[in-house]
């Protein structure tokens, strides 16, 4: 375990940022580790990395990493990231967001960035709840689940963030879990490499709020649940319908090539330049 620790330390900021704000048993640290290792494997320069987030527990991540980091407004990480990417297309721009941040308040931005196929990597850490504000229900809180604003059980149907992104035109869509940390690292790496809009939903655990409200047991119980319910997509597709109900597919769900937005804009700029000697 020594080697990965060293890799992480190369990318973490030192000083008064630590201890971090996350609760014991939270999955955010696992996702941060997966992102860092993916960036390290790709050999991206820290100077060329921008990490942008909105508001929420997961959105506190940028402060800990030694990249160009931008902690923005609730729901708005994607348009901020769009501005960076449009102005400096050479930068690797990564958005870290939560389920509420990306699919409730920021849902509009998510679908339009996916539609444009702009080369951003969006990592949605889905813990099924608004953790930072104390456990209110989000668009991914399961129907019937308890949150501090659904004390009688959640009436809302849920968003499938991956399907939402796919429907909006995302060219790389994947789901993994905090339990499958090695897979998460590999998928995040592929998402970074993908030229176009990529989104990775990382199913994660909020044991302190969601887990406690819904009697999910210890953090490790919640991890075991991810192991049990997250099924590789090929195997999932073969399951009979009744067995799919409490499971979800993980792995790369969409991976297609389409013209990327900043590339197309660069071509537009090129096409408008006067030909040389054409005075």
């Amino acid at each position, binding site marked *: 375990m020594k080697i990965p620790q060293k890799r992480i330390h190369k990318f973490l900021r030192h000083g008064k940022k630590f201890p971090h704000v996350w609760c014991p048993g939270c999955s955010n640290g696992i996702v941060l580790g997966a992102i860092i290792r993916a960036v390290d494997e790709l050999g991206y320069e820290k100077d060329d990395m921008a990490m942008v987030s909105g508001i929420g527990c997961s959105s506190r991540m940028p402060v800990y990493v030694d990249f160009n980091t931008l902690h923005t*407004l609730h729901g708005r990480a994607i348009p901020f990231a769009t501005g960076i990417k*449009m102005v400096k297309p050479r930068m690797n721009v990564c958005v870290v967001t939560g389920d509420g941040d990306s699919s409730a308040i920021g849902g509009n931005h998510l679908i339009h960035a996916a539609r444009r196929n702009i080369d951003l990597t969006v990592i949605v850490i889905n813990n099924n709840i608004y953790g930072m504000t104390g456990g209110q229900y989000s668009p991914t809180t399961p129907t019937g689940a308890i949150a501090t604003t659904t004390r009688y059980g959640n009436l809302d149907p849920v968003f499938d963030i991956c399907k939402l992104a796919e429907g909006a035109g995302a060219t790389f869509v994947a789901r993994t879990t905090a339990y499958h940390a090695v897979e998460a690292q590999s998928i995040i790496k592929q998402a970074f490499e993908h030229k176009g809009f990529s989104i990775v939903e990382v199913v994660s655990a909020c044991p302190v709020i969601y887990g406690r409200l819904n009697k999910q047991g210890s953090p490790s119980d919640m991890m075991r649940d991810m192991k049990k319910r997250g099924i590789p997509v090929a195997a999932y597709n073969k399951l009979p319908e009744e067995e799919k109900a409490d499971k979800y597919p993980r792995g790369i769900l969409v991976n297609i090539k389409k013209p990327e937005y900043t590339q197309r804009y660069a071509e537009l700029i090129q096409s408008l330049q006067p030909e040389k000697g054409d005075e």
Partner: protein
Amino acid sequence: MAKKQTKKNVVLMQGNEAIARGALAAGVNFFAGYPITPSTEVAEILSVELPKIGGTFIQMEDEIASIAAIIGGSLAGAKSMTATSGPGFSLMQEGIGFAKITETPCVVVNVMRGGPSTGLPTKPSQADIMQARWGNHGDAPAIVLYPNSVLESYELSIRAVNLAEKYRTCVILLSDEVLGHMRETVEIPEIDNNKIIERIKPTIPPEWYKHYPETAKYRSPMASFGDGYRYHVTGLTHDAKGFPTNRADEAEIQNARLKKKITYHLDDLIQVEDYEMDDARIAVFAAGITSRAAKEAVRSARRKSRKVGMLRPLTIWPFPDEVIRERFKNVKAVVVPELNEGQMLGELKRVLGNKIKYYPIQKTSGELITPDEISAAIKEVRK
């Protein structure tokens, strides 16, 4: 589009086009916006012109995304602008507050229309004077400019970009439906590159870099993302390096900085037009499109040898308190025409108290205030 006339650089130009041309002259190379009447020409023109010069235009999904994108673009090193009107301006307020606290240069153009809500989309208004100052939550002063002609729209567009870069803040450029859509013959001045302000870049090594350092004049260098200075930007109250803080002493320093960088530079920021004020006993205080009628009324009063003058703020915020106190020393009464219910009148009263008499003319019907109406008010004062 501007029609070429015989004289060099003399063109028939629309107010909104002048804002777009001014932005280009100032070096704006990133624009993100969302269509809204009566501001759309700014976006339309920049969508054509920016890619020609290697800049970038993007139409976002809403105004919230637009302000977010221009802040992101500015952090990446671009001179950034967006343009909108009432409803969009309301949506942008959270982002404007973010630009202020993170000290990220950008310009928001607000071509004012009648409100509240959808209001009168094709009619002029001056009812966002206060929103431009107090729209975002939390205290943070604003720099707000308001021209009154097509040429001045061009000039103040340049100035807005310059001030945003110079003071690292969100500058608001107001216009109104009539000013934005009217056409005037203007002689576009040659671009003087010496008058275009570029962001100060740090010259120290990255490990010494502070994104919000304490400096004598509250102006500080700014590295862009990708420049090799990896720093943190957050809308949370932060320390000098940009990291979130809950410490009262650090919060105090940063909040004071936002205020002082404006109040320390009032001489640079405040611009007024002083028309026949030297011996004036009656003044008209007006801005933007209304000041055109006001000037006509003053001119007509002067023809009758009446001692009437006009003071017009080009910088609405910070409000020109000292200039007003100075120029109104011998003024007995002030006529205050405005297309709102007294937003500037309240400020004047704050500055001048009950030393003088106030004659407000207020309209929110979507109609302009005419020179005759102002002349009538001047006549009323003289009774």
